[in-house]
């Protein structure tokens, strides 16, 4: 019986089995940002511990940074304090920091891959649950808490239990107007938000074979929304082509050696999994969330489901969602008025996302009364988009073209919903209060669907725009 990528990578990074029964796991790449690292630095400082492998940790600033004006000192005093703490901590411990002046700043899960820090076969950790994004390259990547950030700083290791593996095969071809985001939302809708607890997801099948690296990142990014701490796609020619020539990727002969090793760590054809799920690509529609967790999603042509369609166990959350989102069961989601449109985040703030959104934005103007933001995932994404003239398309249509950051995905910065505004959002979470207002309402969808909603002022079907365009 063959082995999965998860098993191979896990075994290669195992330092030892600990007395607790956990694995002491070496972490090949540690990414840090300003929100979950300052307390960890305080802990090692108090304990008098050095950073064991400073060359294996990289930092950026993303959550708190404003996307309109990044002049120092930042106008929000606490944001400035957090930014300054990260600058000081990285300087003191000899860690490379990609700040706004570096030209390489951006959302941590966007810049890791674009600089080639993220590579197949690595273990990758970051104090952020969307670290699963890096699994798109065939890395084993997961989010951790601050005490574990401390553990990695001090030892470059984590005490972890090996997850079980579930292979999710999506076979066939995606229909027009269906994007990787829809694949992610469909998987979570189908399997539920808790089904992945204790599992690593291996995404496979025709759809993933054909999907771009950006698309794979979108799907892996949302693994955690289905409960899986990590999700990955086996590395292939597309992966190697994406990585070739990037800043932290070896070149020449060393690149060939790297490719040979990357091929070896992919799952064997006869690998064993704890579970296998198969999904038909043809059943996936442009998908929109209607509720308060990412599993509460429907096709754009569907209606808000009846509470009786759910198990007794789920009903309370469904009823809570009706109340919070102001729905009556049976309402159509298509045509729901929106107040804000947000394109960006570690899920959908990459160049391919902006291209897809711009293709829709060029067909019209943002509807009156709608605030529409486009926030590139990184300074590099912004440069690329500007070189293609995408920013001009967005601006001409009435979208605001912002600077790189997490922005309205979690609203730890000035970009926030007000009151019970409805936001069509390309981000990853529709939790209560997620976008900065305790009563704000989030509808998750693909970037192209957000652009379509911005223009019509209501939830729209991107397939109509595409067929008319």
């Amino acid at each position, binding site marked *: 019986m063959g082995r999965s990528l998860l098993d191979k990578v896990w075994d290669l990074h195992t330092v*030892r089995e600990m007395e607790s029964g956990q694995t002491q796991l070496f972490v090949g790449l540690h990414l840090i940002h300003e929100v979950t690292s300052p307390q960890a630095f*305080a802990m090692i400082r108090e304990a008098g511990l050095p950073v064991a492998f400073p060359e294996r940790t990289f930092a950026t600033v993303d959550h708190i940074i404003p996307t309109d004006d990044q002049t120092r000192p930042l106008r929000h005093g606490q944001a400035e304090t957090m930014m300054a703490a990260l600058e000081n901590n990285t300087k003191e411990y000899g860690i490379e920091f990609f700040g706004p002046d570096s030209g390489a700043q951006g959302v941590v899960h966007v810049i890791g891959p674009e600089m080639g820090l993220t590579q197949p076969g690595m273990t990758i950790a970051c104090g952020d649950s969307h670290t699963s994004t890096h699994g798109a390259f065939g890395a084993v990547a997961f989010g951790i*808490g601050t005490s574990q950030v401390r553990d990695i700083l001090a030892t470059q290791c984590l005490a972890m239990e090996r997850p079980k593996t579930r292979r999710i095969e999506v076979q066939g071809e995606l229909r027009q107007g269906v994007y990787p985001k829809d694949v992610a939302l469909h998987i979570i809708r189908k399997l539920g938000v808790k089904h992945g607890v204790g599992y690593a997801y291996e995404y496979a099948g025709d759809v993933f074979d054909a999907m771009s690296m950006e698309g794979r990142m979108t799907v892996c990014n949302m693994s955690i929304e289905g409960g899986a701490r990590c999700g990955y796609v086996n590395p292939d020619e597309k992966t190697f082509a994406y990585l070739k020539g990037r800043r932290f990727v070896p070149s020449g002969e060393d690149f060939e050696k790297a490719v040979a090793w990357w091929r070896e760590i992919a799952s064997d054809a006869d690998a064993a999994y704890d579970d296998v799920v198969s999904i038909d690509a043809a059943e996936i529609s442009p998908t929109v969330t209607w509720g308060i967790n990412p599993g509460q999603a429907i096709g754009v042509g569907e209606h808000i489901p009846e509470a009786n369609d759910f198990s007794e*166990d789920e009903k*309370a959350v469904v009823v809570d969602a009706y109340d919070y989102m102001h729905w009556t069961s049976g309402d159509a989601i298509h045509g729901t008025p929106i107040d804000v449109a947000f394109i960006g985040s570690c899920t959908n703030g990459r160049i391919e996302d902006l291209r897809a959104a711009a293709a829709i934005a060029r067909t019209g103007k943002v509807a009156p009364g709608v605030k529409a933001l486009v926030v590139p995932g990184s300074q590099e994404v912004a440069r690329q988009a500007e070189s293609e003239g995408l920013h001009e398309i967005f601006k001409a249509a009435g979208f605001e073209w912002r600077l790189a950051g997490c922005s309205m995905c979690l609203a730890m910065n000035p970009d926030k919903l007000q009151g019970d505004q409805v936001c069509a959002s390309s981000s990853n979470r529709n939790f209560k209060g997620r976008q900065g207002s305790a009563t704000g309402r989030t509808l998750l969808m693909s970037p192209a669907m957000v652009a379509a909603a911005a223009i019509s002022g209501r939830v729209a079907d991107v397939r109509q725009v595409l067929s008319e365009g």
Partner: protein
Amino acid sequence: MTETEKSGLRPVTGVTGHPVPLRGNDIDTDRIIPARFMTAITFDGMGELAFYDVRFDADGNEVEHPMNDPKHRAKGPQVAVVNKNFGCGSSREHAPQAMHRWGVHAIVGESFADIFFGNCVALGIPCLTLDAADIEKLMAAVEQEPAQSLAVDVEKNEVRHGETVYSGTMPASAREQFLSGNWDATGALLSALPEVRSTAAKLPYTRGFAG
């Protein structure tokens, strides 16, 4: 076991406290501590902000919530009773830190999200899992008899509320960490630093695939 490991030992064999019922499946960490309160470089003051948006109205006045209810609120340690998939979403340790600083020293629930559970272990907060029927029974019991203390016994993997004993489960490794006092993993991880260096040296990417 090394001297480093020995010096960090703080066994948690059990927690007895005043119960606080927090009903609902899929309670995410954004709800436990909204991100807008995380613009800080320490965890200080997070306790009073725990579950802020369901404990306070837009003007900052307390609303009806078990954590605001004097009959569920006590000075000493508290034990939270929760439902399914508690702590899903963001990996923020601010969530268990806020609950801990508010007074929660143990949690009993039907299931926990992976990252949240791990964060609780790292803070010495045992999370014990009971089956669905027992959680429902316990939740109703602590709502009806809030003054009755709740005991979480890590050693016996059980929960005691008055005369009633509920049998629970916890992953063996976490249980071992609590009982041995090694729940704070840094010491144990540090003790193997030489092996860490040799594991790193064997990985071809640590030398850029050269040689």
